[in-house]
């Protein structure tokens, strides 16, 4: 299995180059400026488009915060296998709770279960064929958070 986070970071190098350790400010390319001009104009066409842009910006902030915190947290964990195992256990437990919880709570459990499943899936990919360590995973997540934060600049 390939490294989906690393591949995505690599693909976005045409716009944003993260720092080596994922801290500080990334470098934006000249093309980023071109695309920013384009998206600023597109999302400025109408008030509805401005609202969409604002919502995307907020979503990117939320996503960057979550990804950054996951990166910081797993850096302190033992190994990718341990973290992956914990995520699987959490996902299984939450799925079970979801089946017996009241409807209102089930949606929250479903969301949390889905999150842990997604993280576990990404970590499994890293620990598998990509052969990365937990330090690599933490760095890649920090870089991804850095990129997502920088992407906010594309949305006015």
């Amino acid at each position, binding site marked *: 299995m390939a490294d989906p986070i690393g591949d*995505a970071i690599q*693909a976005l190098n045409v716009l944003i180059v993260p720092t080596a350790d994922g801290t500080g400010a990334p470098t934006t390319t000249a093309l980023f400026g071109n695309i920013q001009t384009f998206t600023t104009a*597109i999302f400025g*066409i109408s008030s509805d488009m401005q609202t969409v842009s604002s919502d995307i910006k907020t*979503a990117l902030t939320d*996503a*960057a915060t979550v990804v950054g915190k996951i990166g910081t947290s797993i850096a302190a964990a033992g190994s990718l296998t341990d973290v992956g195992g914990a995520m699987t256990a959490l996902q299984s437990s939450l799925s079970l709770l979801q089946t017996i919880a009241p409807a209102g709570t089930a949606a929250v459990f479903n*969301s949390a279960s*889905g999150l842990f499943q997604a993280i576990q899936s990404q970590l499994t990919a890293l620990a598998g064929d990509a052969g990365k360590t937990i330090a690599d995973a933490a760095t890649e997540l920090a870089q991804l958070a850095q990129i997502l934060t920088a992407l906010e600049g594309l949305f006015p």
Partner: protein
Amino acid sequence: MAISDPIGPVVQALSVLVTPNPALNKVSPQPTSTWTSGTNTATDGTLFTPAQALLGVLFGLSSDMTLVGNAINGGLTEMATVIAGIADQIGSLTTIEAEATSAFGALKTVLGLAQSIAPTSANGVLQSASGLFDQLNSILTSLGSIGVAADELAELSQQLTAAAPLFPAA
């Protein structure tokens, strides 16, 4: 699987009512302002006059129908403005065509990845954003030219502007 041109068939279908003026030269695309500046207006197609007469009667039947006609007229005019704006902006990317196409593809990938990890509350919006860049990338890939994509959108905006008077203005 190759993606077909999503805009061309719409322009073609609308041509029985309103035909873009001038016609698009796909070999050497014209500036988008050819259609968006208001200098040229779409030519009435064979069905324009009969359709206008029919719709005039239909939307004049009652005050409620007139209000619906007004709303459609306003909606078409607004959409034409938005599409013209998008066409002009896409047209501005023609000098960096390959880089822009690559950037849209990368943005789609990263936003899709973020969506898989982000909290549920952010999922829908990130999906929309990823979808937007996916659509842009698909259009550019299917047409093979930013100039043609921009021009087809410009043609569509001109057609929508010309089609709006089919419905009574407020």
